[in-house]
């Protein structure tokens, strides 16, 4: 069996926290692949030491798996080199696109869920898994719009992608909540349909809120503590799945390391309860 992330809380690694992060009792760290695609220097020196002491998840934000165009072979090669060097326990990417023409757009952009996009995405994931020589996880997005042309529900779309490609899923519970609030749907109905058996990692993050004429709009900002309704959904998910690797993401207005550890402890308290139940 290939190495996997521990069923315990992890943190997104921030270079400004390097000294504290290195010795901290954190089960795993996650980094964005594209931040470690320089040739040398401090980023790799830190990641080498961090990786030697902790389990590692490498999370891509640049592959544009949901894009209509073919994947960028140069970027796939860079990913392969990075994964070969650090041998992370997990590699994940997004159900989204971020490249158009020659330009990189620096955001996780939405797509319609149709038979056509399904076929394109599956071909991209097949190619990625083949080049990287490993199974990847695909993450559900936070969305602000829907598409008139969509014919698949998102949870069904993800299940079908996983069935066709053999990839696993990364369940971002905050994204589930943000999308459900934004589209006036029920996050519990989404989670009831979600193929939880395929989940290899869970993400938790904070969001911001604004008000539209017909109700709230939540923004997946990764700039705040995880919101209470998201913790509740998370507890319900792990009650069904048992303990899972759980990442606290906090990428903007990054607080001190202690604040991140406190979020990880909150996740650990919920995971510990499930460890007891599922061990019994």
């Amino acid at each position: 069996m290939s190495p996997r992330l521990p069923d315990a809380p992890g943190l997104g690694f921030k270079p400004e926290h390097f000294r504290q992060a290195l010795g901290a009792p954190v089960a795993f760290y996650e980094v964005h692949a594209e931040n470690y695609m320089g040739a040398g220097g401090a980023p790799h020196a830190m990641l080498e030491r961090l990786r030697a002491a902790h389990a590692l998840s490498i999370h891509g934000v640049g592959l544009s798996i949901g894009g209509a165009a073919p994947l960028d072979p140069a970027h796939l090669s860079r990913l392969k080199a990075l994964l070969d060097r650090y041998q992370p326990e997990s590699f994940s990417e997004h159900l989204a696109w971020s490249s158009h023409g020659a330009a990189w757009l620096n955001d996780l952009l939405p797509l319609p869920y149709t038979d056509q996009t399904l076929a394109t995405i599956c071909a991209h994931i097949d190619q990625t898994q083949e080049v990287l020589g490993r199974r990847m996880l695909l993450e559900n997005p936070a969305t602000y719009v829907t598409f008139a042309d969509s014919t698949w529900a998102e949870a069904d779309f993800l299940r079908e992608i996983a069935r066709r490609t053999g990839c696993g899923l990364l369940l971002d519970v905050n994204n589930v909540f943000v999308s459900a609030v934004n589209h006036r749907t029920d996050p519990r109905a989404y989670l009831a349909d979600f193929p939880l058996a395929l989940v290899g990692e869970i993400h938790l993050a904070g969001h911001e809120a604004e008000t539209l004429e017909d109700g709230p709009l939540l923004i997946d900002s990764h700039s705040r503590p995880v919101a209470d309704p998201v913790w509740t959904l998370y507890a319900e998910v792990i009650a069904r799945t048992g303990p899972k690797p759980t990442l606290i993401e906090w990428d903007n207005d990054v607080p001190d390391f202690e604040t991140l550890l406190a979020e990880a402890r909150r996740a650990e308290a919920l995971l510990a309860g499930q460890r007891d139940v599922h061990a019994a």
Partner: protein
Amino acid sequence: MPPPADHALTEARIAAALWAPRTPEGLGPEPSRDRRFAIYRNNVQHGLSRALAARFPVIERLVGVAFFAAMARVFAASHPPRSPVLLDWGASFAGFLATFPPARSLPYLPDVARLEWLRGLAYHAPDAAPADPAKLGQTDPERLVLRLAPSVQAFAAASPAVSLWRLNQPGAAPEPLRAGPEQALIARNPGLAVLVEPLTAESHSLLCALLQGLPLAEAETDPTPLLALLIRHQLITEIGETP
């Protein structure tokens, strides 16, 4: 029911709308579509602006946060990143600043931007083990050839860009600024920090010659100050002799 729009077409509409104040066609029936789509537009523009500011912090300090953000949006729309590796983005920013009309009153900006770009190159340059400086004394000085660390960059500007950069570091003590050209060596030290060491025009010329692989004996100036700097920061990776 009409057939679904082609994926590539949907994508092209969205990509165009990220830089124009027009919400793309084809979205779902939810109200407030303009505001909803604006989240993506803001994420793209703000995200790229912050990435550029992280690479050019002194430019942001010199022009102010609001001016920088507005300028960064113009730059990002006209010179978008060509790959997801954002640390490679911004090579053309100095050239852009030289031709951006609202920045014309600050003619030193392109020089400072070049300096900041070179600092980034030094920060991410390949690792290389330093040579043993004792070998310098064992080599025929007439035939000495040095190879420098990949992080070493030679910088020269017609403006006092090096002083301007230093004065705009957090906690820098104020000092008078003198007009005129300045030069510097930019490189990464063994502690992986990037240094900006002012050079005389003569030492800068010598550094350029060394980076081109010319033998030290061809130097027309005293190489001692530059060699001392290179040795102190362990920036010599090979000490060889011409055949």
